[in-house]
């Protein structure tokens, strides 16, 4: 059943200017999803000039040569569509889902901002969105309990010139200092047809869709060359411990290890490891910390992997009056136990079944499917990799999980404590 379900029939084209186009037809509903990945993320920035890729996630909605400020959102919403964008280390995506008869509108809007953003880019728009981004940073990170943990971990796990060492939103100082010239140059360098892949999914006609893509994107010139990212493999020589005071009631401990890259040999094994440690009540760390010993309010773990590096994280919030060292001791005991005694068949099957079902659940929404297609195309150069991806998990053995744990979780790590501010402890 799964084989057929997860098979994606698609057409892949490349325009003369280098734009990759992937068409995936699904006529079950009268909707169409358009999803562009630009091969630029925060990893393409440099220290002192961080946050540009994310800034574009804002500037790209500020209008372009033929589209006044505010119109991009208005036109898509007027058509009944929904739209957004997101930024990660490796890429930025822009997407909209619309009633299928509005495909041309989406292509017109996407092509205008790909080819003609700069004529409409002004200092005033930049200053406005700088303020918005600073407020986004305040709302999502600075004014949130534990909100700065992620960037503290990144900047300690990676050396300062590694492109994963800063947060995608950028450092506040850098956001304040965005200069129009730098913004223009960043756009000229990365937002080109030969640095992007356009996926169209849903209810459309193949010939008509490719004709429309050709019409709107065909005349956008390609750029000469796109600078490559310099990201040598890194390792920590010694473990680091960082203590950060924040407006929180309960202390929280974080561990971050360097791990495998995305689609690397151990990437799937580490996902399964995180399930075995923390996905459900019966997972090892949850059972021991939250249920048996009751020293933690919660515990979670995950493998976060990108093109240039991966990391494995374990995070746990202490119960009142419990020291983070006690939690740390138990976490490491559980890791040692896992390495020494291995894992059970049931633990492995449970995780695999759960991953398999979630794959099928993820096929419910067209916008998720087209983003997956872009994801696979970007990392594997093969859009139809749903089955391949699932098979990676199917193939993981008990030994793989133990070997992955040994290979990565026995290395030096970053340990972060977020603790209540002194005056609050009393």
């Amino acid at each position, binding site marked *: 059943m799964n084989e057929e379900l997860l098979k994606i029939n698609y057409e892949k084209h490349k325009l003369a200017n280098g734009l990759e186009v992937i068409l995936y037809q699904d006529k079950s*509903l*009268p909707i169409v999803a358009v999803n562009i990945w630009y091969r630029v993320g925060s990893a393409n920035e440099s220290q002192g000039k961080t946050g540009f890729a994310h800034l574009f996630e804002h500037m790209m909605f500020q209008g372009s040569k033929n589209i006044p400020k*505010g119109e991009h959102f208005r036109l898509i919403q007027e058509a*009944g569509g929904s739209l957004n964008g997101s930024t990660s280390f490796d890429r930025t995506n822009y997407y909209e889902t619309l009633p299928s008869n509005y495909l041309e509108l989406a292509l*017109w809007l996407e092509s205008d901002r790909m080819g003609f953003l700069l004529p409409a880019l002004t200092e005033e728009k930049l200053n406005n969105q700088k303020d918005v981004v600073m407020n986004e940073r*305040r709302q999502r990170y600075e*004014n949130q309990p534990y909100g700065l943990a992620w960037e503290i971990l990144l900047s300690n796990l990676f050396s300062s010139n590694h492109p994963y060492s800063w947060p995608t939103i950028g450092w506040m100082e850098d956001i304040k200092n965005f200069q129009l010239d730098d913004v223009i140059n960043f756009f000229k360098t990365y937002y080109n047809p030969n640095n992007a892949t356009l996926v169209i999914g849903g209810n459309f006609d193949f010939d008509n869709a490719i004709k429309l893509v050709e019409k709107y994107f065909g005349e956008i010139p390609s750029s000469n060359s796109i600078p490559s990212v310099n990201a040598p493999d890194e390792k920590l020589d010694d473990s680091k411990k960082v203590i950060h005071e924040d407006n929180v009631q309960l202390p929280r401990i974080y561990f971050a290890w360097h791990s495998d890259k995305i689609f690397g040999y151990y990437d799937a094994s580490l996902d399964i490891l995180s399930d075995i440690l923390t996905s*459900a009540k019966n997972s090892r760390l949850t059972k021991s910390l939250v249920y048996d010993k009751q020293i933690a309010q919660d515990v979670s773990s995950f493998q976060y992997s990108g093109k240039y590096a991966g990391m494995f994280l374990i995070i746990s919030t202490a119960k009142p009056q419990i020291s983070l060292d006690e939690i740390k001791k138990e976490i490491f005991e559980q890791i040692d136990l896992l390495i020494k005694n291995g894992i059970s068949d049931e633990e492995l099957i449970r995780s695999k079944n759960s991953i398999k079902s979630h794959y099928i659940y993820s096929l*419910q929404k067209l916008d998720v499917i087209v983003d997956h297609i872009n994801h696979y195309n970007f990392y594997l150069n093969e859009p139809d990799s749903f089955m391949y991806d699932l098979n990676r998990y199917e193939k993981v053995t008990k030994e793989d999980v133990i070997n992955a744990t040994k290979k990565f979780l026995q290395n030096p790590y970053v340990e972060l404590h977020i603790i209540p501010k002194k005056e609050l402890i009393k």
Partner: protein
Amino acid sequence: MIDRTKVPLPSENISFEIPKINYFTSSKGHEIFYTRKEKLPIVSFSIVLFSGSKFDNENQNGLALLTSFMIDEGAGKYDAFQLSNEFEKLGTIFSITVNHDTFSFSILSLKENFERSLELLSIILDEPHFEEKDFQREKKKLLDKIKQLKDEPSYIASTAFDKQIFQDCYYSYPSIGYEQTVNNITLDDVKDFYVKYIKNSKKKFIAAGCLSENEISNLIDKYFTSNKILIPEVKLKLPEKSVTKYFIVHKENSAQGEIRIGHLDGLRKSPDYFANKLMNSILGGEFFSRINLNLRERKGFTYGAHSSFNYYQNAGYFEISTAVNIENVGESISEILFELNNIKQSITKEEINLAKSFLIKHFPSNFESYTQLAQSIALLLIHNLPLNYYNEYIHNIESVTEEEIINAAKKNIHLDELTILVVGDKNKILPQLKTMTNELIELDIYGNLIEKLSL
């Protein structure tokens, strides 16, 4: 070169059929709301009981939620770990949600694992263990969660706002309760709540998925005993309308001010519902709405600002919410008040057309996933709306007149009844409010009065 100056028009007309929701009673008398969807081998299923937090005992706020934490901590022959194991083995997502009005159990499962998932759910409903050791742990977990929320500015703002708007009625308390009220709860209280409001109470069943009416009906009859006891209605004592007042909850050194502004409003069944919905799209419901364009796209004070009419089963309220840079709190409130006043003065035809177009054309996308379908059905049950409600929706939006939308703003936005509340550093905020009010009321993080400050 192509002409890029013209907005491309939509191609052919398309039609979309809103899924038909069927209602039937099984041979055992279970009430089932069902819609069939074939595309994927998935079933989304819920059991809804109208026994939410509003049934919390006096001074025991948090009781319904704590009962939901306890009910799947072991049932029948399974302990808590085995139960969770069984669901994970199936790849089924099982969840329990509690709000003021409802207590619901939901399953998202593959069709092949649906029957077993349903069996597990029936065991949880019929034979929960409710053991003392689990109770102590879950209660402590809830208490520590309450403690953690003391530092969530947006949670504090919403809780304090609810408290001010709803005063002493049951919608003023957070479902999660307070430290003191949760401390008052014993295991016997949980067991009583379960017996009184869950075990024998009439349940409504919702299913969306690739199952036939017969299949779903037989499965429900196979695993669930029929209960006919109706959950009693609790009388709601709605508070008096308030007059406009300013409130502050102090959070030292906060980077932002969390703002809530609003007042009580009518019920979901109000004849003004559709006019309000359209008017609010123009005012603050969407990205393109006036308040967001002003505060975000013109002023840059915020990452986003939003307004909505919200509906409980027995009450409704209007609320604007945003988080703004701490230096711009005063100006942001002024701008919001300007927009509230302004929408009572004028609404353009263009704005109305945009709002209508958005609500109508966006509507079908609410029915894409199995989970969305099940949730749409649940909404009908909570507000007692007719089964063909969604099929009539587009027509209902279309037929609202320009005059009705303008009147909705005039009639349903009350500038003299506003609760204006900010969570943030009062030392920075106070000076900014001086020109706007003489009196500022300081509240604690739960929305209780601390003192009145003169400005």
